[in-house]
């Protein structure tokens, strides 16, 4: 199983020369199984670039199929969906899993995002690819030889935020975003869900010392604590703050790596970067 980052920035895309190494497009991560299964975690603007790449293969001929796992429906996690050509080519197939909110089903949220006041697509009905929405549940399911588990970790206002765990042949990748460990039990659930994962992808835009409104995120220190307690192999932080430069991010990672070494920890810490592919 391989994972590749197409968008790692949080909140809003940041086309900025000082942020290009890690990347300025918003949340989109692709997981590919050994047998070609394609699973995409969230569709921020990084999805537009993934779509361009997919166009070169089966998707360009209307014979592609992909599964989208949506954590929640904030802009930086969904707004990239309607733009790439691949979603408008008949024959392609999109299986979209994600949570309903108290304001409406996942499908209604997408339909609203594509309504003519916001989008020239004029609603979901005009997305050319065959698309199917499934309300995510905690019932594990399989995609080819991948097993997907999902967990509602927390809720920001009325929006439930789900975490995903994708497994193949005893290897596991966990994706946790937009979660604040401010209530008893949430962190314990995250730790149990991430237990012994080979890769934990965790949103962490800011440090504890930074006094900013983060709209419901945990801090880099929290992500590290969860990774340590869950005994994961590699932690990749993402959802980088829109003001964070590449050099600042390098310095943050270096600082916490030094701390981990001093603790005698074997946890590998990285900041997720656009274009980087890892074997899980």
């Amino acid at each position, binding site marked *: 199983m391989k994972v590749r980052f197409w968008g790692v*920035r949080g*909140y*809003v*895309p*940041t*086309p*900025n*020369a000082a*942020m*290009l190494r890690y*990347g*300025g*497009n918003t949340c989109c991560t692709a997981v590919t199984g050994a047998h070609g299964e394609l699973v995409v975690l969230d569709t921020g*603007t990084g999805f*537009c670039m993934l779509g*361009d790449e997919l166009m070169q293969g089966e998707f360009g001929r209307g014979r592609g199929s992909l599964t989208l796992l949506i954590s*929640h*429906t*904030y*802009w930086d996690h969904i*707004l*990239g969906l309607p*733009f790439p050509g691949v979603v408008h080519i008949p024959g392609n197939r999109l299986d979209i899993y994600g949570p309903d*909110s108290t*304001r*409406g089903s996942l499908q209604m*949220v997408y339909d*609203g*995002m594509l309504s*003519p*006041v*916001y*989008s*020239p697509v*004029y609603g979901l009905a*005009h997305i050319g690819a065959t698309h199917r929405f499934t309300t995510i549940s905690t019932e594990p399911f399989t995609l080819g030889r991948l097993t997907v588990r999902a967990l509602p970790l927390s809720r*920001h*206002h*009325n*929006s439930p935020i789900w975490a995903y765990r994708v497994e193949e042949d005893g290897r596991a990748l966990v994706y946790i975003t937009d979660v604040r460990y401010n209530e008893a039990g949430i962190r314990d659930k995250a730790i149990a869900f991430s237990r012994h994962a080979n890769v934990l992808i965790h949103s962490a835009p800011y440090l504890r010392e930074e006094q900013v409104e983060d*709209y*419901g995120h945990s801090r880099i220190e929290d992500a590290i604590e969860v990774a340590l307690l869950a005994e994961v192999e590699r932690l990749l932080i993402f959802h980088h703050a*829109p003001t964070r430069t590449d050099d600042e991010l390098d310095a943050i990672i270096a600082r916490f790596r030094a701390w981990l070494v001093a603790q005698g920890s074997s946890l590998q810490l990285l900041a997720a970067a*656009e274009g980087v592919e890892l074997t899980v």
Partner: protein
Amino acid sequence: MRVRIWGTRGSYPVAHANMLRYGGNTTCVEVEVEGHRIILDAGTGLRLLGEALQRNQESFRHLDLLITHTHWDHIMGFPFFAPLFDPELRLDIYGLARTQSSLRTTLVGALSDPLLPLTMDDLRAQISFFEIGAGHCFDLGPVRVRTALANHPYRALAYRLEAQDGVLTFIPDTGPFHTVLFGDERIEWTGQPTARSQSDLRKLALMKEAILELAHNSDWLIYDAQFTDAQYARFPHWGHSSASQAREIAEEAQVRQLILFHHDPHRTDDELDQIVMEQQALARPGLLVTAAFEGMELQRQP
């Protein structure tokens, strides 16, 4: 009048090494006349403008925001505009009146749960909404504003801003005026012109006339040039123009400088350089052809 361009891209923002010179942020233009600030569109460039305003700690108390339409690329910077959270700021927002949804509902809906966690109460600035139509004329401080309708899906406004020392016309999204007539309904492109009836052709001609009148004799015309001519031929139902169509409008309207705008998210810096050279070579004498880049400033030479 001093104009500064903060976002140039159309459709969606792109962070790409080959597109940084012209810029990857979506549509946002700042106009300043005698200390009065008007912002055109709220694409992701607006976030940078907000940062600059706060950095300079200028004592701005009042901003006008004119929105052409509310497609995502034109509003994606709105909740990231830091002055929205400043209770000292008065922000007047102007946009197209629609029967289907109020401007306020559209904007607040976009940043409310489950799309974002904000509510109107979180926006501490004193915000007012003004719904306007085509053919309107009003003054914002020392600036006279005129509007017209652009040829774009679900309709969009075009703006002319006129001051003593400069005239700017802003038409970021419009198709040309010969084949497809856009309105509220979605256009299903069948390879045939949609405007075939005499009445539709007449409507297109009137729309073009109003656009030419709006842009007439401008110092600067910022105009939709998303497409190449080949792309336009494939996607005439998207409501965008090619660079050569933009140039032809600029020539007919007798503007002094054309600023190609709303760059396609796949258009690289080098391609844009080439497009500008080609169009400049074709342009009638007296027309300067340029392409909008992030940070571009416009001011009449004294």
